[in-house]
């Protein structure tokens, strides 16, 4: 990956900080968030790397990473970070970068198939809230 003056000027840091309310620069890359993350092995960038990408303003990488979409919002990272950073909020902010541009991650057209499986209402409401521009 290439880091240029342009990437460092990208507004991804500002946006994620504003939406999450978290101080990204407090992260000292200890990796504790990644060590306990149950989804880390499916992520393009494990949570600590993902935070680094944001810190560096790597807008493209942040937006195309699958990381926030396989994050389960389980709050393990949040309760373990020695710097008190609420990483689950950073993942939410990263999802919202896409949702607020009115782009859905969940294919709404696949809802019928999902409903036929007898999914509970909480599953359906949650996926709309977390993975669509609702």
């Amino acid at each position, binding site marked *: 990956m290439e880091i240029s003056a342009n990437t460092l000027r990208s507004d991804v840091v500002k946006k994620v900080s504003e939406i999450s309310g978290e101080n990204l620069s407090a992260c000292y890359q200890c990796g504790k968030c990644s060590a306990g993350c*149950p989804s880390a092995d499916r992520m393009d960038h494990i949570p600590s790397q993902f935070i680094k990408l944001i810190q560096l303003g790597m807008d493209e990488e942040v937006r195309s990473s699958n990381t926030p979409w396989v994050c389960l919002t389980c709050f393990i990272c949040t*309760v373990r970070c020695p710097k008190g950073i609420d990483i689950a*909020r950073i993942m939410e902010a990263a999802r919202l970068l896409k949702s607020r541009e009115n782009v859905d991650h*969940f294919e709404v057209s696949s809802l019928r198939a999902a409903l036929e499986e*007898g*999914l509970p209402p909480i599953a359906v409401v949650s996926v709309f809230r977390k993975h669509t521009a609702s």
Partner: protein
Amino acid sequence: MRISYYPGCTLKSNAKNFEDSAIASMKELGVELDEIPQWNCCGTVFSLASDDLIHHLAPIRILLRTKETGSDSLVTLCSMCYHTLKLSNMRVKENPDELEKLNNIMYMEEITYDGTVSVYHLLSLLKERVGFDKVEERIRIDLGSLRVAPYYGCLLLRPEGVSIDPNIENPTIMSEFISAVGAIPVDFPHQTECCGAYLTVDNKDLVVERTYEILESARRRGTEFIITSCPLCQFNLDDRQKQVKQKFPEFEEIPVLYFTQLLAFAMGLDKKALRFDLNYVSPLSILEDKQILAIKD
């Protein structure tokens, strides 16, 4: 004791086995769950964005409804509802200006919400206000050597402010409950690890793998039943066993019950209270094998 009760959408649909077993077993303990009138969906997930206020409207309106009935406590069964109501309540208590904005939006309501309702999960209510000793006194069926593992998942414990147990990494409240109903609690390392949650809708494979990992971890400790308190965990750990079996043919099914179903069973309540018919993996064959089957029609 009477207490205001918020069921949420899923307890009225997929998780009737949770609601029916809870209402019946609480009645045995002298606890009347008073369903609040005109309730709405809580939105299921707590919004984690600083600039997003509107998604707190639904949970706060539920707390306003509770206050309207003259009550200052609300109990929920579903872990997701519990988590969302509890965190939204905390947020508006810390931010009076946000509460004022939400009250302004709810201008059609007859009262305003002032942050004074306390949100409980049924397990905390049982431990703190009823007492596990009272639960123990009401048990009629000897569960003998039945080995039951608690599955907490995430939302009863994390983040810190919502936890129903003082120890968020090694909670014991569910094991204490299992001992109170007369079964043997099994400790297993995945009891507080996420089941994959709502990714069950758009990333089924991830959930199938998580379920397999969690259930196998429990089995290695000799688990016969798992109990849970979240209808989404229950769906992922129970119904998804169908796909687990397809992917891992050697896998053997494990019944996953709501904790209130285990309680109602140990109290000797009837079929209508247990609703085992709504569980994908039936607990009946294990109960028969262990000769502790005593279900009344």
